[in-house]
């Protein structure tokens, strides 16, 4: 009955056709973006240096060029009257499995560090659009938690409608996903394979790093010989799996670890010390409130839920005060979705932190902007409204920490990607039908430890 629109095949077609109707000479989506853009009279929540009432933000060439009570933008700048509106940095989700079409776990071996998330990234998935409409501009797409070492993540900018490579966060640091606890236990224990216990969990990891150390030593010896022009130098075999782990030991990859229990944080830190790598963040980390003071000196952050609990044994001691209590103990705290549902309202999850533990609005907004940016390693480029940073911005009709806020406009690199006032989807770079209905209720849930 529904004939697929030809627009579906050409994401850029809508602005293109609109332009054609106006007889534009040249047109790309980007060309429509003004060189200078000024938001005036907004409540500007900077995430880095407090809130500016009746503030202005100047965007020049995709970057933030000024922020304050006034800005010195050129007279030619396009002005957006933001009276009665709130402006925040784009929301950042440090733990998403969106747009991966269930290819999140290569659950055929507990150690698969060479699996590259980018190979599964489906940039047409509707979950990305729905997150965009919730103000999400950057996501860390992570492997699931079936494996002790799942693989390498991909960082995206949520530029819905652009092609796959244009959605990648340029030069973002590499991240690798580890996991311990119930999920790898269940997946491999269910097959009578190692690891079926936490003992097995951590032994599998130690063995993997022993292998990686040996591999790295082999290459170091070879490279030393080459440096001395030793003609007897024989190149060791390249092994993608060990190469990835060696890069962890070389400190070239951020380690993101899925784990829940207080004892596991201590074990994970001990193993990290033993092999000489650092843990960037514990994900879930629902019991961090128990040992935050011990973990804080390690400078390991957490990406946690606001208030999910009770879905399995290791989530039984979860309390909604975890985030704020851990923060008060000196741990850097981010909130994350791990869900195509919650990713659409992470701002509300941050709002709950005002309720559970009395976070200030500044602290709360940081949990879904600057702190997740730090976990991903892009906090020098996004996550706050500061001069020089990417103009990833969201304009809200209400206080974004309230239940009532709706994103009005979402900008990424200064380019408008979502505008609630537009008919249809509200997207500026896409029109047509999104992919991703395969995850409808008919299928049930993937329980290989994809999420949670």
């Amino acid at each position, binding site marked *: 009955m529904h004939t697929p629109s030809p627009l579906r095949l050409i994401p850029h077609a809508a602005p293109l056709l609109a332009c054609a109707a106006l007889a534009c000479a040249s047109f790309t989506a980007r060309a429509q973006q003004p060189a200078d853009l000024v938001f005036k009279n907004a409540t500007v929540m900077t995430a880095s240096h407090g809130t500016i009432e009746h503030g202005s933000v100047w965007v020049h060439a995709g970057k933030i060029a000024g922020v304050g009570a006034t800005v010195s933008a050129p007279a030619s700048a396009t002005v957006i009257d933001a009276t009665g509106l709130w402006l925040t940095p784009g929301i950042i989700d440090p733990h998403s499995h969106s747009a991966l079409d269930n290819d999140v776990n290569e659950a055929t071996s507990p150690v698969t560090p060479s699996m590259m998330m980018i190979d599964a990234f489906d940039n047409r998935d*509707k*979950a990305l*659009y*729905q997150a965009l*409409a*919730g103000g999400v501009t950057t996501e860390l797409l992570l492997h699931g938690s079936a494996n002790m070492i799942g693989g390498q993540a991909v960082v995206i900018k949520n530029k819905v409608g652009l092609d796959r490579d244009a959605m990648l966060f340029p030069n973002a640091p590499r991240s690798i996903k580890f996991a311990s606890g*119930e999920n790898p236990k269940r997946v491999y224990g269910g097959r009578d394979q190692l690891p079926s216990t936490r003992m097995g969990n951590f032994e599998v990891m130690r063995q993997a790093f022993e292998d990686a150390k040996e591999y790295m030593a082999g290459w170091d010896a070879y490279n030393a010989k080459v440096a001395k022009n030793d003609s007897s130098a024989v190149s060791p075999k390249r092994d993608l799996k060990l190469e990835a782990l060696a890069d962890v030991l070389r400190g070239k990859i951020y380690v993101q670890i899925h784990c829940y229990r207080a004892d596991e944080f201590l074990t994970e830190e001990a193993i990290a010390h033993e092999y000489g790598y650092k843990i960037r963040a514990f994900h879930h980390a629902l019991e961090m*409130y*128990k040992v935050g003071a011990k973990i804080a000196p390690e400078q390991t952050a957490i990406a946690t839920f606001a*208030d*999910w*609990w*009770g*879905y*399995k*044994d290791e989530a*039984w*001691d*979860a*309390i*909604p*005060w975890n985030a704020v*209590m851990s923060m008060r103990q000196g741990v850097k705290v981010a909130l994350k979705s791990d*869900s*195509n*549902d*919650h990713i*659409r*309202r992470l701002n*509300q999850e941050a*709002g*709950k932190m*005002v*309720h559970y533990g009395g976070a200030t609005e500044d602290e709360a907004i940081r949990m879904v902007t600057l702190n997740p940016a730090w976990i991903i390693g892009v906090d020098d480029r996004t996550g706050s409204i500061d001069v020089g940073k990417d103009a990833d911005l969201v304009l809200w009709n*209400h206080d974004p*920490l*309230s*239940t*009532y*806020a*709706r994103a009005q406009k979402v900008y990424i690199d200064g380019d408008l990607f979502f505008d609630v006032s537009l008919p*249809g*989807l*509200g997207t500026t770079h896409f029109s047509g*039908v*999104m*992919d*991703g*209905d395969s*995850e409808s*209720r*008919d299928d*049930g*849930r993937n329980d290989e430890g994809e999420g949670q």
Partner: protein
Amino acid sequence: MKKLLTLALLLLAAPLALLAADAPKKVIAITGGRLLTVSHGVIENGVLLLADGKIAAVGEAGKVKVPVGAEIVDARGLTVYPGLIDPETNFGLIEIASDQNSSDLAEPSDEIMPHMHVYDAFHSETELIPVARLNGITNAVVAPATDDTIAGQDIFIQLAGADRDAMILGRDVALAMNYGADQRRRGGRGGHSSFPSTRMGLITQLRQTLIDAQDYMAKRDAAAAKKDEKPEITKKDEGKKDDAKPETKKEEKPSKRDLKLEALIPYLKGERPVVIGVYEGYDVETIMGLAQEFHLKVILDHVTHSQQILDKIAAYKVPVIVGSIYDAPRGNERYDAVYTLPAELAKRGVKIAICSADGGGPVSSHSSRNLPYAAGFAVAYGLPYDEALKAITQNVADMFGFGDKLGSLDVGKTANVVLANGDPLDVRTDVKQVYIQGVAVPMVTRQTKLRDQYSK
């Protein structure tokens, strides 16, 4: 001197009175708060009197006389509202979601299980109840999970009480029915692959069941009518007995009770509501056709992907439980296609309730504490505030037969009252005190204990 002594004695007696298991005789006066009455607007600087477990008075300060000796609760700066009611939970049917040993959610051995009574499984000591209560949820409907076409019968509970029976306010208050893709036995979660594996099968089976129940009801009624003419029957029976034919003998005996069919009778008579969980518009039309055929008293549940037939749903003149409001829209739909559903239904005059479920999965009562935020989110997407508050209080009470006892701040209603430091529908608001049947519930859960333990 005498006066002082009496006062001292009174002060000493006060805490003891609160410890009594029964509703306290003492009057509690909640003064100075902003009262959201639900039934008759907002009263700034109001007074609410609680006595004998009920609301004894409600009104503006100065217009309500606070009796001498009443315990004064200073609610200045606080918002006071009736306890919230979650229209769809699994409280007491599961503890840890992944732990099958803790699950009494569903009996998937057959699709037609009206004789499953939630009260037989309800574990009133579940940790989930105090957690929800802490955020102002005081009552809830407990339903079985949705695996079956007819899953069983719901209970209506109060989230505090001396024991299980004190917490169950109503048994078999509604029949839990489901229709759609999830109920097909298609090698799904339960590992089934048998009839009915299509919607055709589901409906045929359901229609046959309801016809069987009608026949059963007719037979039973006929038998009861015969019983009234006792002398004749006795004569006949005696005559047949003389023949000593075993086959006829069987017929004479009162027919064996069929618990399954018997369970359906109150619903065929339209005495109690049938809650029909259904998502797709075309499924709504199919199941409503069947419901009308058998004159069922319907509460529609979910209607998540029924945007195209909202006018038709309004024309059914049945109440609707909307949710999860967080279910994802289709790939060709705007991001807010489901967020706007409560507003679109209310606009058409439909009486709505909102449930607490998270999106994309089965109901999880671990999230029941987020019920007010789902209602608030509906406000963000166009539902008038008053309607949103009703959708988690009075409307739910009305749908399940408790409208005269619960759901608003009105004289004579059960004193289920919440005090919070702001707008109840806002995620930032902290609930300060919950009263159930006029008793201040301890604001303690396993979670607050863990918080306090590690805050030292």
